[in-house]
């Protein structure tokens, strides 16, 4: 985008006929307007691609909107009916919300902790090994979520899965167990999948920060008698606060709206109601039941939840900065 900015050209020849005799005023107005003119294309693109769909989802959520309405194009306003239904649904409070929130908290924690540990490992490796290890974890990152999910499903498959085979070979269980039917074991597998897919991003980002921590600081701390743990938590972590903020916010957003990793698991598409989360619930209501209004209300709820968490988190970070 920046490459197209005609920075070197002031109020070019094209502007002169319009500005005429009132040059000073025109110039200051132009100076104020110019940034916006330059931003206009980008803002337009954003408005069309992001803002309009967002507004539409908001509008759908206030309607009883089904296939018929889509085909006919007629609106069908019902006020806050969808929201009332969402908030009075026992499914929301007993299944969907706990699944979504608890899972997100766990997966963000594990992803960040594990990713940071790997980053520290990478930082202490030599050039050759660092390349080898980082390409290996890149492979996990590059794997599409769908492919990754099928691999995990295969590993934990009841009859032909590696996991059950190993447990039985070790004599830890007598008969195969279907790990997908229980809410906890189901989400444990999703957690493995999501952490495995998400930690490389954290590792690489934190590594970049780690390499930027001045060596002098660490040496000084070491001379002062700080051990490895102390050096990490008292010197490195404060230096990387910004990076952790970014990593945690992004992970939170990703892990809250996890969809494919749940939907594609056996029973995850709705036949096991115990494992629904906000994303899958919204999808099955919208596209399975043709209740786009209700699905949109769930989606709006998810967005607001994420927005709330992000704002709260950014505020605490900023407050700590001020201290």
């Amino acid at each position, binding site marked *: 985008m920046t490459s197209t900015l005609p920075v070197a050209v002031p109020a070019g020849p094209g502007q002169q006929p319009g500005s005429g005799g009132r040059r000073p005023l025109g110039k200051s107005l132009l100076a104020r307007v110019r940034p916006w003119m330059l931003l206009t294309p980008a803002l337009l693109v954003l408005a069309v691609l992001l803002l309009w769909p967002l507004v539409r989802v908001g509008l759908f959520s206030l309607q009883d909107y089904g296939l018929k309405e889509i*085909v006919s194009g007629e609106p069908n306003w019902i006020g806050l009916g969808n929201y009332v239904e969402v908030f009075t649904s026992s499914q929301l409070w007993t299944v969907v919300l706990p699944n979504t929130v608890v899972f997100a908290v766990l997966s963000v924690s594990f992803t960040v902790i594990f990713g940071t540990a790997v980053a520290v490992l990478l930082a202490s490796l030599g050039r050759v090994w660092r390349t080898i290890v980082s390409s290996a974890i890149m492979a996990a990152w590059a794997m599409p979520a769908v492919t990754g999910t099928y691999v995990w499903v295969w590993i934990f498959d009841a009859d032909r899965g590696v996991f059950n085979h190993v447990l039985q070979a070790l004599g830890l269980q007598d008969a195969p167990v279907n790990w997908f039917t229980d809410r906890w074991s189901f989400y444990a597998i999703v957690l493995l999948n999501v952490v495995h897919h998400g930690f490389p991003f954290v590792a690489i980002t934190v590594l970049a920060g780690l390499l930027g921590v001045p060596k002098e600081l660490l040496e000084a701390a070491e001379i002062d008698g700080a051990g490895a743990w102390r050096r990490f938590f008292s010197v490195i972590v404060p230096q990387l606060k910004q990076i952790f903020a970014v990593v945690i916010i992004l992970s939170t957003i990703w892990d809250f709206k996890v969809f494919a990793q749940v939907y594609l698991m056996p029973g995850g*598409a709705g036949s096991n109601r115990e494992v629904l989360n906000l994303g899958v619930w919204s999808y099955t209501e919208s596209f399975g039941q043709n209740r786009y209004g209700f699905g949109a209300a769930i989606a709006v709820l998810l967005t607001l939840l994420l927005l709330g968490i992000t704002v709260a988190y950014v505020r605490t970070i900023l407050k700590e900065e001020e201290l």
Partner: protein
Amino acid sequence: MRREMWTRRNVGAVATAALVALGVAACGSGGSGDDGGDGTVDGEGKTLDVWIMQGTNPSADDFFDEVGTAFKEETGAELNVEFVEWADAHDRFVTSIAGQTTPDVAETGTTWTPEFADAGALAPLDDYIEQAGLGDDLVEGLVEAGTYDGQLYGMPWYAGVRSLVYNTEIFEQAGVEPPTTWAEIESAAKAIKEKFPDKTAVAVPGDAEFTVYPWVWGAGGEVATLDGDTWTSGLDSPESQEGLSFWTGLAADGYSSAGATTWRETDVLDAFAQGDVGMAIMGSWTPGAIVEANKDMEGKFAAVPIPGKDGGMSPSVLGGSHLSVFETAEDKDLAFAFVELMTTGEFATKWGEQAGYFPGQTSLLDETLKSTDPLVAPFAKQFVEGGASVPVSPNFGAVQAKLTTSTMMQSILSGSEDVATASTKAADEMTSLLNGGS
């Protein structure tokens, strides 16, 4: 007329009636192909987008290559066929209807056609069918299922039915005969499990609703009945619960497998093709797919109609597919030319033979039903004498999408709920959805 169709007995009767009627109706159809292709369709330079379903049927790539060539010859238009998995298809249809990106023609499951018609996405076909002179030669059960508000939105293409498919090698080695009653199913499963502890004696899948209803009907229950304008699900009746208890009891006794709790029909097929399953409820279209998946299975399996509780037959869902023309199709004449090519004559016969389906044209159906092929005859018997229909309502698609029956099965099979609790929940949900609730 439509109202009377719901009960399984009537549907079976209709299939039989269609058969009898063929003697009268079939004669006229010979020349109708000529009338239909009156040469007015010019598709030069056009492309027709078509969605065809795939799942547990044999691969259809070669078949559609041939159809494409013939279609190009007849109309000059290109054929662009896209295969869509049954499991994803409902979502794909609904999404594309919402986005106005539907194909020109698509295979629609018989339970979906009224739903999409209700949404205004499909084009009525009566005029075309009349023009082509095909009206009298269509299988009635499929016509009923494709009719919404008095108009036909789905051209009968094929029908299929599920029966009990068993592995003959396993049966021989375990020394059991194909079962004819429920008690015999149980004793056969027991014998197989004793002989082959590592195999699945009988597959009781948790995510395959059409393998569940035969047991409900077989015990004298109903999936749902219509009284006036109100549907009531009968899944929680004592009869239905008896059927469900028998079927899920096979799993509880250890004759199924732990994995089957989350199996779809595609998983049943995979396991059966690997030779790991003694018997399973499988479709008339699966024999080809079994051999395709594993050549060694050729000649090592057979089928019998689903046994009734004390003999006879348990009714099985008469499923099928329509070919529907979507409102978004720019050239509907061209679209119907394709529909006609597929559902009549050479290609309809070939599709039925290759895939193990029963044609939707009465004159062709008769030929298939006379077959003595051991992998066709049992299904044909089930088709004619033991066919039943799921509730014919535009809302049944919502029941399927909600996975009401699968939810019930999985919670019973995983042991989280007993039959009474799970079936009551499922019946309440189905009743509510069928009556347009949520």
